[in-house]
């Protein structure tokens, strides 16, 4: 299924027509290319999570249009029409462990596929595959999800989304509050999934390292609207501009810039691998000169 996404002049207001109306988004226009890894950044309260709700058809835009694959969503769209498109979208919310409720881990993971019409056997099979992928041991399948540790709960919740075999995977700060090893493992899982199934992935994150390392495309939010869109190299080129938006460049680029000031010339360094490669090349070069 084609899963490119386009936001065209989208505006969204919470509780419209009441005294409590608060604007969430305004004039939001951007693209999420199909089969690529898109990162969404912006400081807290810039509208990223509101955008996610529009992206999954959980709420309707107040103005403008959202195109999800072939489905066009406007303020007039019936929410029921969106059930079909939602079955192709996997959405991992912030702290997804809060959504677990079934008696056993396995049942909870089967819940999503079953809701979208899979038979008991099919749901069970895809649940087992998903649990395997996130690294939950077989012995835990029949346990209550509430007996697990926080990290395991997070994995089970993510498995519940992966089991739906989505074409589009939206991740809203999936690694928040995990230890470094857990963060690394999850990010690896998401990139592997993306490569293996050519998924369209949207990652909302505050960690610029992930953006530099994994993203093909970056969207920058500020004050409820998109202020920049482009490749990671484009976005990280203007450090002063990012600082002004309360964002930053990845540590590897900061280090490369500091080296550049002392006369070491490096080009387009975004992540630590690129940094190491270029430094190694230069050091070897100097050794050869001597």
């Amino acid at each position: 299924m084609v899963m490119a996404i386009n936001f065209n002049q989208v505006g969204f207001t919470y509780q419209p027509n009441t005294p409590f109306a608060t604007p969430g988004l305004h004039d939001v226009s951007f693209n999420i290319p199909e089969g690529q890894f898109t990162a969404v950044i912006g400081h807290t309260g810039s509208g990223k999570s509101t955008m996610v709700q529009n992206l999954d058809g959980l709420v309707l835009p107040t103005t403008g249009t959202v195109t999800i694959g072939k489905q066009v969503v406007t303020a007039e769209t019936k929410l029921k029409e969106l059930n079909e498109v939602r079955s192709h979208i996997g959405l991992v919310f912030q702290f997804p462990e809060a959504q677990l409720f079934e008696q056993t881990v396995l049942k909870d993971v089967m819940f999503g596929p079953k809701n979208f019409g899979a038979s008991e056997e099919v749901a069970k099979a895809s649940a087992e595959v998903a649990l395997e992928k996130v690294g939950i041991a077989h012995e835990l399948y029949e346990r209550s999800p509430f007996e697990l540790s926080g990290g395991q709960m997070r994995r089970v919740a993510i498995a519940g989304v992966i089991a739906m075999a989505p074409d589009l995977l939206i991740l809203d700060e999936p690694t928040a509050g995990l230890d470094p090893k857990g963060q690394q493992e999850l990010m690896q899982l998401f990139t592997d999934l993306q490569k293996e199934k050519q998924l369209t992935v949207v990652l909302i994150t505050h960690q610029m390292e992930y953006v530099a390392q994994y993203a093909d495309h970056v969207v920058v939010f500020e004050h409820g609207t998109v202020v920049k869109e482009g490749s990671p190299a484009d976005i990280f080129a203007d450090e002063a501009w990012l600082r002004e938006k309360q964002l930053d460049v990845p540590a590897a680029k900061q280090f490369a810039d500091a080296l550049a000031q002392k006369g070491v010339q490096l080009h387009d360094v975004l992540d630590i691998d690129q940094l190491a490669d270029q430094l190694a090349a230069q050091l070897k070069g100097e050794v050869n000169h001597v």
Partner: protein
Amino acid sequence: MFSNMIIGRYMPGNSWIHRLDARTKLVLSIAFIFVIFFANNVIGYVIATLFTLFAIMLTGLGVGVFIRGVRPLILLMLITTLLQLFFVQTGDVLVHWWFIKITTDGVINSIVVFVRFMLIIMFSTILTLTTQPLAVADGMESLLKPFKKLGLPVSELALMLSIALRFVPTLMDEAQSIMNAQRARGVRFNEGGLMTRIKSFVPLLIPLFVNAIKRAIELGDAMEARGYRGGDQRTKYRVLTWHMQDTIAVIGFIIFTVVLIATRWMM
């Protein structure tokens, strides 16, 4: 989900009513419910309506806000009104068609019930719209103090009340985000027959309860770590003070009550 409910929400402002002591507003709101029953003729209800409108004007929020607030309850009000209309069988018969008999007493009673309902809701909405929930809790605690001598654990009740009030918006947000997460997993809230609908709320309620219990444990630990050991020996940070305007409000209300009682003998 609850986006249009105005009842029970606070709207910031700095009007004369906003600045009144929470105790004044609490007592007067409760007193109003009793006082309204003294009205038994048109003049009485006109006075009560004018008094309510005057109080609403003093909040500086506009009548529109209050009318929108009443809207969710309109169905309930109509049902009670219609019950009065159809089941009160005394007085002169106005309409008699098949088994339906509408009488003059029925019409009068239904109007009376409707107006009382409306005024009571409007008047109590003034309290919630202009008083911060925590101030309401403080006011309650202060008003319940005399019952301490009867063994009522007033400070514990006040603590529970203020914690409950503090967590209403948090739990609402959490309910909304769990609901979104389950909808993303294919749950269809508000679709299908009664049983399907009830079942669809299980994936919302269980996580909500589990998270509330977790939160309670964490909050209890955090309170103990900060030296909380029960209510009696505590000092207060927010101190309620009685001002001149509270006296004026109470006197105004007493005058209103006297006038309302007087109307009973005018007709």
